[in-house]
């Protein structure tokens, strides 16, 4: 199966006559100064609304999925990561990377806008949900990593992370759903 390669050229379409900027897939975007966008997102997070951040992440995931030409879940992890990190970078949200701690998938985002870790965690949760991980959430750890977990395990993992647990420790406290239920 041939893995599609991401082409950053022509990702942005600038319609100068209409005063609009669209992605290759036709999604219209608005370019905002970084400090203004960060302030707006902080205000939304302060009101307990993570939906807005999750929708931003979902939009990134959908753009990446469109470039993958099919189900992202059927692609190799390297291919999906290459497309996703390219879309995230084109939106100016930083450099995305994935790590694997045991069975736990962990994301890192270097060079992100000045947003609280919980805001970035909500954004990445929406991203993985759009890539096929239904009910996916991300929990920020103290060292700046984001643990990808199911929504049912998010509360427990968030409490561990608040205690200072690192991804390795969190991975040891998680197990398959069948084992955990027994």
């Amino acid at each position, binding site marked *: 199966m041939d893995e599609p390669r991401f082409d950053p050229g022509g990702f942005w379409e600038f319609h100068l006559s209409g005063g609009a900027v669209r992605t290759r897939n036709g999604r219209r975007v608005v370019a905002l100064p970084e400090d203004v966008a960060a302030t707006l997102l902080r205000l939304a997070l302060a009101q307990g609304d993570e939906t807005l951040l999750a929708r931003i992440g979902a939009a990134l995931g959908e753009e990446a999925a469109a470039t993958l030409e099919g189900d992202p879940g059927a692609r190799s992890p390297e291919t999906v990561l290459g497309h996703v990190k390219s879309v995230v970078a084109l939106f100016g949200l930083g450099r995305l990377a994935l790590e694997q701690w045991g*069975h736990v998938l962990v994301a890192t985002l270097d060079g992100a806008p000045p947003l609280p870790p919980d805001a970035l965690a909500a954004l990445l949760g929406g991203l993985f949900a759009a890539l096929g*991980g239904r009910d996916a959430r991300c929990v920020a750890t103290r060292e700046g990593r984001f643990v*990808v977990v199911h929504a049912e395990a998010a509360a427990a993992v968030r409490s561990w992370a608040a205690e200072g647990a690192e991804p390795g420790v969190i991975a*040891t406290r998680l197990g398959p759903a069948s084992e955990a239920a027994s």
Partner: protein
Amino acid sequence: MTATARLEALLARVQANRAKPRPQRDALPAATAAAPAPAHLEPIPSTSFDVSPIASPHDTLHGMPAPAAPLHAPHASAPPIPVEPVPADAHEEPRLAVEPVPADAHEEPLLAVEPTPFELPTPASVEAPAPVAARLQPEAISPPSEPIARLTALLPEPEPATFGGLLRRTLALRPR
């Protein structure tokens, strides 16, 4: 006889020779025969002059009679130096009797050094320091913790080949 007397005797002899009759010149050509007879020479008055001997500067030395021996150069009194004949190639530098140099003469001379036996210490002679020895004891190594053991048990499992499989495995985890 002094010089003046000799001059006077010489003049007298010349005058006597002039007074003798000359032979006829009949055998000469006519032109020559017609030549006039030589004029009679008047005798030159005798002039006597006294010539005093010129004193040589070497005749006297500071008023003293010079020695009869010839003068010598100041160095004449030095003993003669024997001079050996100069060979034809005397301008060249004398050649030294040099033995032929071996081709490897520029290298350091090899010393007759016998190789010293170099033996590595036997393992029995090496003793580890006490702290290191303690750490090497099997009893000193603590058994792996339960989380690490669980992680180790998880590693040998095959990794999902797709992103979907990787994501599903992650989302299937729950708190133990």
